[in-house]
């Protein structure tokens, strides 16, 4: 069996195991369904209220993707500035270190008070959570460019753009993809947590209302959706990574 088939089999085994283990936990614990609903109840709720779940999932995904897109745009731009203009890094790093180390759950309520219950606080929270890992990895990747190749480019009188495009960026791609593995899933977590605070839509909002009304079936439904989203994101990044770095497997 190849490594790829073994990996796929692992995922299939996990997907089949989850409802079995879950049902076993329900049966063995004897807990009431309003505390620990079985997979049957949760899947039934998901089926009955699918349009509701779909809508809120869409809202969360939209918030996560917009914040993440901006985080990537700014992280890559600033990483390039750091590498080509080190003085920019000297100036910005103290700010970044402070912002990075303020827990985003503390920032979220401040953003809600300042910006109101628009989508903007959610975008910013997602941005703050995902920006730094992408920035750190892209800077490391751009700086990891082979010095011998850089010398070759210099001798060939390459422009800065040529050096970036032919040497630095290819060197940064593996680092960038590694950042995605963490940050892409992180964007959904950040969007859900941001929705706890103020939103009237999104999976975070569903969690809050389900808790208030003791709807464990909805809570577990959201958990399932979040798990599927996280796993899908991860697999998408793995697929992208394989496509972008397919030369490594040649």
């Amino acid at each position, binding site marked *: 069996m190849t490594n790829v088939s073994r990996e796929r089999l692992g995922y299939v085994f996990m997907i089949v195991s989850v409802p079995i283990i879950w049902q076993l936990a329900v049966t063995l614990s004897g807990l009431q369904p309003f505390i620990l609903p079985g997979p049957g109840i949760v899947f039934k709720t998901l089926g009955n209220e699918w349009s509701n779940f779909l809508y809120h999932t869409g809202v969360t995904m939209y918030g996560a993707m917009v914040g993440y897109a901006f985080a990537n745009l700014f992280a890559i731009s600033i990483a390039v500035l750091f590498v080509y203009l080190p003085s920019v890094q000297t100036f910005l790093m103290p700010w970044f270190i402070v912002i990075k180390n303020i827990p985003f759950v503390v920032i979220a309520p401040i953003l809600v008070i300042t910006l109101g219950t628009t989508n903007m606080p959610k975008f910013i929270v997602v941005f703050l959570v995902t920006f730094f890992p992408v920035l750190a990895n892209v800077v490391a990747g751009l700086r990891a460019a082979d010095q*011998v*190749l850089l*010398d070759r480019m*210099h*001798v060939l*009188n*390459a422009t800065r753009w040529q050096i970036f495009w*032919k040497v630095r960026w*290819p060197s940064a791609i593996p680092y960038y993809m590694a950042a995605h593995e963490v940050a892409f899933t992180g964007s959904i977590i950040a969007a859900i947590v941001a929705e706890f605070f103020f939103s009237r839509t999104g999976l975070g909002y569903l969690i809050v209302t389900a808790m208030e009304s003791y709807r464990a079936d909805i809570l577990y439904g959201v958990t399932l959706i979040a798990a599927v989203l996280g796993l899908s994101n991860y697999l998408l990044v793995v697929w992208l990574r394989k496509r972008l770095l397919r030369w490594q497997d*040649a």
Partner: protein
Amino acid sequence: MSPAIQLRQLSKSFGEIDALKDIDLDIQEGEFIALIGPSGCGKTTLLRHVLSLETASAGEILVGGDTPERVRRENKLGIVFQRAALVPSCTSLQNVQMTLDITGVETPLTPAGLLDEFGLGAFKDHYPHQLSGGMQQRVNIAAAMVHNPPFLMMDEPFGALDEMTREFMCEFLGGVLLDNPKTTVLVTHSIDEAVMLADRIVILAPRPGRISAIVDVDFPRPRRRDLKTQSAFGEKVLEVRRLLYEVEEA
């Protein structure tokens, strides 16, 4: 006719350390010079000056009657480092083509034709990690020569190869340069390699880096591997070795 490369009282200091001191050397057009000497004697530093990768603390360098910087801008320099300066995500052909893309030089040489000539016709679409060390170095040399520069600088190009591959590569390089004559400077630790390839061997002494002796090598070309079995070759190697011992003992 004025020399192709002229070093006049070239000196270079790194802080308190004199890496090079009052180097005077004329290299004729089409001549092959090997720089040899103990570690830290400034061989690579000297080469980097000719490539305009370093700026002299004192003295003058003229390459083709011009400054190295201007010669570099005119794409008249080719460089081969010990480690192949190849982009890992590009095939052999793309790596050689890259030189033409960057320099924009039009030459009768084509990347595919050169790779064929170098015995790598079947490996054009291979990535560097799929090639042996010797093959990588041949791609590297093709990439350094495809824009047909009149000056070729080589910094221990075969240093990472095994003995037999080194021998093959020496013969191969000698043949290539016989067909495409260039003014060549080779930095090497190998006396055999220097005697096999060079018209003159420049022996450098360390602390500060300076020329200790120059040995003429007048074996006819092409020089085949079996030259090494001849007593004249052995005597020349011995002569260089003795001079190197003197340098180290001084």
